[in-house]
């Protein structure tokens, strides 16, 4: 149940172009303030604050206070979990094939 709730909030957070743009901005340059993020979005400050709150609730954005500045960071951990759940297993057969090929080629060289 808990995992389902985590994933529901994650996919809801991702299902909005403005929020994906915020993640792209943080991916390009991490540790930004609200003001810096507002410069790049055609949206009210309040709107950006609300989108950031959704991203933070989904754990896609983490914040750190530095003095009086609140800095926003892209937190890749939930995306890593998605990768492990749906993608990592498809790499194993491909990797095994590469490993087998390497062994066969090196054997024929020797």
């Amino acid at each position, binding site marked *: 149940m*808990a995992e389902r709730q*985590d994933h529901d909030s994650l996919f809801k957070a991702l299902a909005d172009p403005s929020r994906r743009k915020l993640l792209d901005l943080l991916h390009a340059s*991490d*540790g930004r303030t609200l003001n810096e993020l507002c410069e790049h979005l055609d949206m009210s400050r309040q709107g950006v604050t609300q989108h950031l709150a959704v991203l933070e609730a989904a*754990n896609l954005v*983490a914040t*750190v206070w530095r003095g009086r500045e609140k800095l926003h*960071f892209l*937190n*890749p*951990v*939930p*995306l*890593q*979990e998605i990768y*492990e759940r749906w993608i*990592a297993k498809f*790499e*194993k057969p491909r*990797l095994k094939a*590469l*490993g087998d090929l*390497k062994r066969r080629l090196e054997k024929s060289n020797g």
Partner: protein
Amino acid sequence: MARSTFVYVTYIRTTQQKLWSALTTDAEFMKQYWFGVHCQSEWVPGAKWKMVYSDGTISDSGEILEAEPPRRLVIRWQHQNKPELKAEGDSRCTLELEPVGSAVKLSIVHTIEREPSQFIEAVSGGWPKIISNLKSLLETGSIALAEPYPAQSAQR
């Protein structure tokens, strides 16, 4: 001053004490989620700290700057194995464990006083995998990934 920082946050359904042990004193448990690596230290302020590969090579070393079990740990952390990363000098890794409902929020902030930093780039690839494995191991009893960099190991 220019600095590079990465921040990782995860919520793990466990207790502060179990998570603290998993991150510090329980070396055998650590090897399971940290791809064979474990850390050695007395885990008190001023104590030496080192990270050791399964073959005994020291990958990183430093010192415990702050230790408040089971809440907060700060490590002065310098890479030792690759010359270009070692040359970047000391980084600072802060781990905070905070109970939130039935889970513990683990925050890891890793900073070095230079921008850009190859070291921070290198650890940024590792931390999400390690934390994700740790979460999986504590919550379900098994890890999610057995190899840290499967694509690279296949190329060797």
